[in-house]
């Protein structure tokens, strides 16, 4: 595999560093909204109309949702010319699990979106990242109309390890979504430093 940087003509850019962050969570939890609210480019959305037949999702609590993401959303945040962050919204349904392994390969970490109306929807994502040892934070997507439960109660309900950050935010707000990303990257850095210290 080539590993040298391209400088044959000196006019083209060098190869940047690209980091992957996954946005996971149950169906309708706000993954597409979050990727769209913080990224530079329009997410690669392939949405399919829900037909209500053959293994369709249970949409109770999210009746307004008519389409579901069938491939992945992705967005880019350019930190510097040499450093780019890619956000991938993981496909929300069980039949797309096969994509997760590829997405999580080498990923920096994951954000698990939780919807308090259907908290159990994020269990599979949490199980998945815990098993793979992928660092993750839980972000509770708070819509205006809902009552808030407090992040401690949610951490308890999800039976999380005590060091896993839980934050409440509004996925539609770019700044709030950005703060969740910062929370994740800082958490990954803390874990890395701890691991280095215990070596």
């Amino acid at each position, binding site marked *: *595999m*080539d*590993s040298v*940087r*391209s400088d044959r003509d000196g006019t*083209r*850019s*060098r*190869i*940047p*560093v*690209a*980091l*992957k962050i996954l946005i996971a969570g149950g169906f309708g939890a706000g993954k597409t909204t979050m990727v769209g609210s*913080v990224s530079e*480019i329009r997410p*690669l959305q392939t949405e399919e109309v829900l037909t209500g037949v053959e293994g369709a999702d249970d949409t109770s609590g999210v009746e307004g949702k008519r389409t579901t993401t069938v*491939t992945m959303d*992705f967005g*880019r*945040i350019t*930190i*510097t010319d040499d*450093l*780019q*962050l*890619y956000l*991938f919204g993981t496909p929300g349904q069980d039949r797309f699990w096969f994509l997760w392994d*590829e*997405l999580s*390969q*080498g990923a*920096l970490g994951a954000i698990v979106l939780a919807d308090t109306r259907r908290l159990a929807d994020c269990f599979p994502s949490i199980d998945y990242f815990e098993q793979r040892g992928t660092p993750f934070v839980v972000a509770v997507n708070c819509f205006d109309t809902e009552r808030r439960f407090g992040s401690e109660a949610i951490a308890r309900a999800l039976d999380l390890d005590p060091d896993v950050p839980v934050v409440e935010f509004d996925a539609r707000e770019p700044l709030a979504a*950005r703060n969740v*990303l*910062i929370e994740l*990257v*800082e958490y*990954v*850095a803390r874990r*890395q*430093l701890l*691991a*280095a210290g215990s070596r």
Partner: protein
Amino acid sequence: MPVDPLRAPHDWLDHDAGPVVRPYAMTQGRVAPSGCEFDLVAFVVATMANAAPSPSLQPEHHAIVGAAWEPTPIVELASKLDLSLGVVRVLLGDLRSAGLISLYEPPAASQPHDVDVLKAVVNGLRAL
């Protein structure tokens, strides 16, 4: 949704209908690239600005070479060219065999992320 007047509207076909050509028709039915799997964020760089016409190259091959003059990750190519990721991978395998592109994989997955890089990411995000 605004209608492009240059494109004749059809009652029977619109954007929602999806691609007219089935994706893997472009790859002669091949679903896996020759050689290894490519990471989603592996960067592609064309070794020349334009590939010479050749019977083995399809328009999509040429489009990739044209789009990858600047280092471009695979996902961006798929998005820009409106091709499925799997199709892009197969075409990239062809192009690499033909020496028309170089691929730069991200560092190995097992390697921990550099804390300095993480700090740079946090600072960059704060500045947004």
